[in-house]
């Protein structure tokens, strides 16, 4: 994958030598940049409109897809990835893949903190409402905290241990 290749452009600079001597990237027209900008604005309005419609779980997915489309537009046209050296796109793809890995494996841990255990009928996270010591003490509700917190496990306050927010 040697990339000492030259720019294969039809520009008039044609001195030979180690690859194309002069630097001349592809120059887009006003119309092209304008069109991309309009598309970006349209997507922004779309994502705001979709957000007001209550779609349940799909809302997050749609928002991410629209944002990714806008990001792709900016990368290919405004950042010239379309007519640039292919290795630059490879760097972007590598960065995005490793971010994906980071997301996937961390969420894999966080969202399954008690899944595996349910098959055997008991839970790692106490649903009995006992707060784990050192857990959430709501900074705003100062008054309730003062007299409520006698023994660490005594009070059965409303919010269960922070990460047991799902219902079974």
């Amino acid at each position: 994958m040697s990339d000492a290749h030259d720019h294969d452009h039809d520009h008039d600079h044609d001195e030979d030598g180690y690859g194309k001597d002069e630097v001349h990237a592809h120059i887009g027209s006003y119309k092209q940049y304008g069109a991309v900008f309009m598309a970006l604005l349209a997507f922004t309005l779309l994502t705001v409109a979709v957000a007001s419609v209550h779609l349940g779980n799909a809302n997050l997915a749609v928002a991410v897809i629209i944002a990714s489309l806008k990001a792709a537009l900016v990368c290919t046209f405004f950042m010239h990835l379309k007519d640039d050296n292919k290795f630059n796109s490879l760097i972007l793809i590598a960065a995005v893949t490793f971010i994906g890995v980071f997301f996937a494996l961390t969420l894999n841990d966080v969202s399954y903190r008690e899944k595996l255990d349910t098959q055997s009928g008991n839970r790692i996270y106490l649903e009995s409402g006992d707060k784990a010591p050192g857990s959430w003490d709501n900074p705003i509700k100062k008054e309730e905290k003062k007299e409520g917190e006698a023994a660490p496990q005594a009070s059965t306050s409303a919010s269960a241990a922070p990460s047991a927010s799902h219902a079974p």
Partner: protein
Amino acid sequence: MIHLDLLSGLTPPPAAFDLPPAIAVESSQVDWLYNMIYYVSIFFTVVITALMLYWVRKYRRQKTDKRMETPHYPRLEIAWTVIPCFFVVFLFHAGFKVFMTQAIAAQDALEIRVRGQKWFWSFKYPNGREENSHLYLPVNKQVKFLLSSSDVIHAFFVPGARAKKDCVPGMYTTLVFTPNVLGETPVYCAEYCGAPLGYPEPALEGAPHGGHSAMMAMIHVVPQDEFDKFIKEGPKRPEGLTDAEWGKQLYRQNACITCHSVDGAKGTGPTWKGMFGKPVELNAALSGGVGNVTADEEYVHESILKPQAKVVMGFNPVMPPYTLSDKQIDAIIAYMKTLE
């Protein structure tokens, strides 16, 4: 009750290679895996090192150094890429299977709540009874530990059972094993949790010093009937000890010693020497406006159960709340009275 002669003959020199003597059912499987990888590693290291040394000596550079090309062995390359894959997948499978035995508890497991705190362990039995630094377990009964911590991350490590799990503040984690050997086995803290200033004595007799390294507890595996008898009566004064002596023992076991000195030396908390019955100047801002108070039974009682209620001037409100029974607090007060 087994005599508490703690650490002298504690862990006899390790039998299987260099693992501590096993005290749980699951440990034998872990030992088997450990020994298996141990042999595999020794084999590969010896083979590679022997080959290296032999070839280095055999192919020493001669005067006539006829530099020929390295031949190419594609099949060999593929072989030593694919074969380790199988071996490694087997290792993963075996490891995961044994790991699950220490993660999933049966329905009727004995549930012990373990709380790690800066530099001592406290255990709570199903009937609500709480003990520090000592844990009594019935033999051949699966135990499910519910671990938590109230300040920083500690780790409940029982080398004998090959079991370890972090105690994380703000969430519960579980650990499961079945002790099947009578006797005592140590519990260490495996996650770094700092150290107190100076060189105070540890909560557990004979344990090392230094905070994180002092955070040791003792598990006593006792026959079932003895465990039932122990669990029924609450913490009571061991025979042959006066109230004051029991108070002194509790002063050690509950790690009061880490912050409160008895000889007047300055520590993280106020000294107990000559404190009882005298007026105490409080930090009014932190004690709900109360200026000063005399150190009587009621003050000591409240300061043990709700330490943040009244804070002595010049000290930080860092004392954790304790759940001691009234008899235990009276014993501690008796001990305080002897400290003039």
